[in-house]
């Protein structure tokens, strides 16, 4: 790809990118949120048409004008956002657009058989090809999507953040698969914000920043620090800042919590002002459900929740009023109202005090979120810009800004860094640290943070204590200096 450029209205997503991928290599494409990685790959797959620039496949000019054209040329892509048809079966999803057929009729038997084969390759032997995709878990859906790329003979496979909702076990399987494909001479472009993954699986890398190529190299020869520096354009020292924290009184107490829908089965925790409590666990362990139960988004079967010593009958509006804020792991379907402005999204949970006599004025809404736009920071045109015009990472920051605007004492953060780049992650960690520490001089009390994450290094880096959830049961609390990744994984898999 040479000099590829693409603009979406006023946003310049790509400003002339060069990328070269050799046959049979795994090539990492890295960069901050909004750097243009997904856009570049969509151009490659034919889902977007670049404004300028050229592409060559095996030395021949290549101009796919539809995803079908891209696929016919041997380019397969797994998109960042889940892209399955929830009402169709696994087999129908996998063969969507490339159904084997005689005349207008489908070859149902063949579809079924080849689906089984593809699923077996990624270790989903027991999944019924006739299962309706909408009923599967996120992780399984992600795997089905990977299977979709395996169903035809591709020469170039693009994986856009394939691991963002996979467990460690599934990631291992995926890597094994990638190696097999590589040995067959298939080229792979691998996009991820997890630099260990990049180090483990890729041969070479290209770094994008602000829609431009800012560096490339051989992965093994380049220290991680240097890659990060290329990505953010500066050094990121001290990724996980941790200032001196002095835990205060207990602000959130949960005991024997069980959800009506089955998860969590039993969760007990207590959280003090000025500390960060991490919750680790495997995908599907029920951490999200626990958070949703505490916040009143899922029904509670039994157990008690106390905030500031007084019982809380969980319900979102009561939560916000009592100073409990929740950040959803799924910003697309739950976290944000994307047609609405940044100001609306930030202030929605606390509209009080934004105008005279209980009213809300747009000016006040914008003024109220302006400080957070600066502080976090959110890259945007104006506070009145719709959230849909932001990149994924910046959208996530808007969702975080909501908790800050609401001035919560207890922040429940479910995967707060999912799908955001290293630079932004560092800012989020710094923010969490600042919150936990408070600012006595300016009269800002320390906050309590409950952080759910599937990414152990960040839990270990930011938290004071960690509790592990396994099959719906939340384990004992461990001080951060008395535990490590290995112990946590043992507990999470139920081996401990």
């Amino acid at each position, binding site marked *: 790809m040479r000099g590829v450029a693409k*603009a*979406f*209205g*006023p946003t310049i997503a790509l400003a002339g990118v060069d990328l070269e991928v050799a046959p049979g290599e795994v090539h990492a494409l890295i960069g901050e949120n909004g750097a243009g990685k997904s856009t570049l790959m969509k151009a490659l797959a034919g889902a977007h048409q670049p404004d300028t620039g050229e592409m060559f496949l095996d030395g021949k000019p290549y101009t796919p004008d539809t995803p079908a054209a891209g696929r016919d040329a041997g380019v397969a892509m797994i998109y960042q956002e889940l892209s399955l048809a929830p009402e169709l079966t696994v087999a129908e999803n996998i063969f969507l657009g490339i159904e084997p057929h005689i005349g207008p009729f489908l070859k149902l038997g063949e579809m079924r058989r080849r689906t089984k084969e593809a699923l077996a390759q990624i270790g989903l032997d027991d999944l019924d090809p006739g299962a309706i995709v909408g009923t599967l878990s996120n992780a399984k859906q992600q795997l089905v999507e990977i299977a979709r790329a395996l169903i035809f003979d591709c020469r170039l496979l693009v994986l856009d953040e394939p691991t963002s909702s996979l467990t460690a076990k599934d990631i291992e399987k995926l890597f094994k698969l990638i190696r097999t494909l590589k040995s067959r001479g298939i080229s792979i472009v691998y996009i991820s914000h997890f630099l260990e993954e990049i180090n483990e699986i890729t041969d070479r890398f290209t770094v994008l920043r602000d829609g431009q190529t800012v560096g490339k190299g051989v992965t093994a020869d380049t220290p991680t620090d240097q890659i990060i520096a290329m990505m953010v354009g500066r050094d990121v020292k001290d990724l996980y800042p941790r200032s001196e924290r002095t835990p205060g009184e207990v602000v959130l107490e949960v005991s024997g919590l069980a959800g009506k829908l089955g998860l969590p089965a039993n969760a007990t925790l207590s959280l003090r002002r000025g500390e960060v409590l991490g919750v680790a666990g495997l995908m599907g362990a029920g951490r999200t459900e626990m958070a949703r139960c505490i*916040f009143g*988004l899922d029904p509670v079967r039994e157990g008690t929740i106390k905030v500031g010593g007084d019982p809380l009958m969980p*319900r*979102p*509006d*009561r*939560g*916000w*009023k009592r100073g409990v804020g*929740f950040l*959803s792991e799924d910003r697309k*379907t*739950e*976290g*944000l*109202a*994307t*047609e*609405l402005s940044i100001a*609306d*999204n930030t202030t*929605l*949970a606390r*509209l*009080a005090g934004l*105008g005279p006599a*209980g*009213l*809300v*004025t*747009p000016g006040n809404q914008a003024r109220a979120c302006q400080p957070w736009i600066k502080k976090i920071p959110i890259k945007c045109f104006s506070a009145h810009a719709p959230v849909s*015009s932001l990149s994924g990472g910046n959208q996530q920051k808007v969702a975080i800004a*909501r908790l800050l605007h609401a001035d919560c004492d207890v922040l429940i953060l479910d995967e707060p860094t999912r799908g955001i780049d290293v630079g932004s992650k560092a800012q989020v960690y710094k923010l969490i640290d600042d919150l936990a520490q408070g600012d006595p001089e300016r009269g800002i009390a320390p906050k309590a943070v409950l952080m759910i994450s599937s990414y152990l290094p960040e839990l270990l880096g930011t938290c004071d204590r960690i509790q592990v959830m396994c099959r719906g049961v939340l384990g004992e609390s461990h001080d951060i200096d008395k535990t490590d990744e290995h112990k946590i994984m043992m507990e999470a898999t139920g081996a401990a």
Partner: protein
Amino acid sequence: MPDAVATQNQKDVLKTLIAILIKIAPFIGLIFVWLLFWSQLGSRFANVPTQTEILLQSTIIGIAALGATIIIIAGGIDLSVGSTIAMVSMVLAKILHSTSMSPTLAVVLGLLAAAACGLAIGAMVVGHVGRVVAVVVGLLAGMIWLPQQGLGLALSIPIGVVIAVGLWFLAGLTIRDLKLAPFIVTLGMMGIIRGLAKMVGVYGNEQASTQITPSRTTWIDKLNAFQNEGPFSFILSYFPISVLLFAGLAIAMALMLRFTKFGRHIYAIGSNEETARLCGVNIARTKILIYTLGIALAGVAGVLLFAKIGQGNATEAVGYELAVIAAVVIGGASLSGGEGSILGTVIGALIMQIVIVGCIKMDMDNYVQEIITGAIIVAAVALDQLRHRRPT
């Protein structure tokens, strides 16, 4: 570098210009249509009586469309609006005809009837189908079935209440949260409310009829009239009360949408209901309120219909639902929710009315009018789509 700054400045100017254009685009459509008919008809069109007539004729659809706007912004839809308008006109006429109740009270009861329909629709949309059924069955038993069996109202009404309360709790225990798509609920309610409107003409009448003409003359009859006397004649001689009511309600609704929590919640629910729930918005209560208020506004339109035709008529306002939705959508609202404005709706209603009046004044055949109206709907939305494009 200075070059870059200059380009940036130019860009900013361009952006501001485009932003302004986007804001005023519906106005442009309105002005375009107006000029079109002016160019064809000259002073036969551009005269005060015609313009007032356009305003006057747009009030019923217009006010109903104000209600539909908040429903559509919240991601809903209301197909029952025509039936509600007819029903309210019947309720009002029935009260004025058969009782000596004050007209003001009658109007209030008429609006309450509309609001009750809205409440029922909202309740079914948010999942309280069981409760709605409970109340309806209780009402039917207490007010119609038991009295028919010869029970006095003094006994039958308490029994009806007991039945309703019992079913309410039974429903709560068995089928909770049965959320229904508003399209379906209001499609069903369209028939039900129309039937109820006709029932009003049957209930307790010596002679069933779908029309009720009350014998009294009240202030309601003056709503559509130009008033050349009285203290407010300086304005009422130009604009009848119904036009002022339309304007007043439009302003009130616009302010409500822009400057109140409820208004912001309406947009939030339409844009992403899950997010609104997460942010502590009481979805069920807000939605019920939206439908109640929205359909109460259809009730206001029903009062105006009564004022206009001087009778309650259960077969009027057929098909208004689509005209109302057309007005809202021409005004820039999206049927998937989260977008729309009161100003847009008012302009949408006016555009439709100008086209109707203009076509008649041009003495067009009916079929030509139908084709043109249809084409205008498509064209207006196409233009709206164009201006929604992110400016390049």
